[in-house]
């Protein structure tokens, strides 16, 4: 078979495109992106916090159950209720299997969210959601172990003059404590439910 110059150039271009695509797929697969689909090396988040009754609660307490974890704050009327209402729909959707999943709401704003404040907030969405808070150090440690970002940002246009920037995804932790995946903000409850049901 004889190729013209133009044909050779086309084949070269196609080969280059293939290499570029493979490289993209490779780096894309390694990166812990916001899509939740990316593979990531296994790790085991740990926390030592308190529930609304100030009883100590640690990551070890949930072995044997899946945990659906959200980091947020109760002065968050826009993003946090959206996610917690999705969690509520997921828990209702699980029906008799709901006791195999523990939803956790970890406050990144322990200054304002402690004790009864936390329970009042989480119970507005679903009785199964357990609100947790801790000292600033314990909160930081918990977030770091989940590889989750949050930061206090001064803002005159926010209640008490500050707001919290925070990761908006839901995290799924397995019965052995391993981080399994994240569900990006806005993922429909039905999709989260289907993914969970596949695992149960």
């Amino acid at each position, binding site marked *: 078979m004889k190729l013209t110059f133009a044909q050779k150039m086309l084949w070269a271009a196609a080969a280059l495109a293939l290499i570029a695509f493979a490289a993209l797929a490779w780096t894309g697969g390694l990166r812990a992106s916001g899509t939740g689909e990316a593979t990531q090396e296994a790790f085991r988040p740990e926390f030592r916090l308190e529930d609304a009754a100030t009883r100590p609660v640690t990551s070890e307490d949930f072995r044997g159950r899946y945990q659906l974890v959200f980091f947020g704050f*109760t*002065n968050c*009327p*826009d993003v946090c*209720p959206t996610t917690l*209402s999705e969690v509520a729909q997921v828990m209702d959707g699980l029906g008799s299997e709901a006791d195999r999943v523990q939803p956790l709401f970890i406050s990144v704003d322990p200054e304002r969210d402690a004790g009864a404040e936390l329970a009042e907030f989480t119970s507005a*969405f679903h009785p199964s959601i357990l609100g947790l808070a801790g000292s600033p150090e314990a909160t930081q440690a918990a977030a770091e172990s989940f590889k989750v970002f949050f930061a206090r940002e001064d803002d005159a*246009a*926010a209640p008490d003059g500050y707001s919290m*920037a925070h990761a908006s995804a839901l995290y799924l932790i397995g019965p052995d404590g391993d981080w399994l995946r994240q569900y990006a903000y806005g993922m429909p409850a039905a999709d989260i439910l289907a993914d969970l049901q596949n695992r149960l």
Partner: protein
Amino acid sequence: MKLPVAAVLAFALSAGFVQAEPVRQGDLEIDAAWARASIGSSRPGAAYFTVRNLGDEADRLTGLSSPVSAMPMLHETTLSEGISRMAHVEAAEIPAGGELTLEPGGMHVMLMELTTPLKEGATFPLTLTFEAGGEITVEVPVFGPGATGPAE
């Protein structure tokens, strides 16, 4: 097309059937206003609506007031690399022939310093101030704390 009455009724019931009527004034129409019930009154509430500009000149939403909040403000949630933030927005444009939609995860009215808790099933007045269109007051129905849209 004819829909069975029962199906329509079932939908209306499932949708709560409390959707506010659109309010038209001049070239502007405010539609689908709703708010989430607040959890207590120490935490802020959030309200949402759509503004349609039926005219051929752009207008701007520049102010908000309501008896239920001592500090209502236009906020925008931005999501970047999975991190959400809220920031104050001075004014929002409604392009000629276009619309401005406030919705969860985007722009919202942040109702701070509530004078009364926003209770599910109640309504409250919200006055919007437009640069050209003047003041328009809408009655905002309050849905559950986990509501995600005007049809719940």
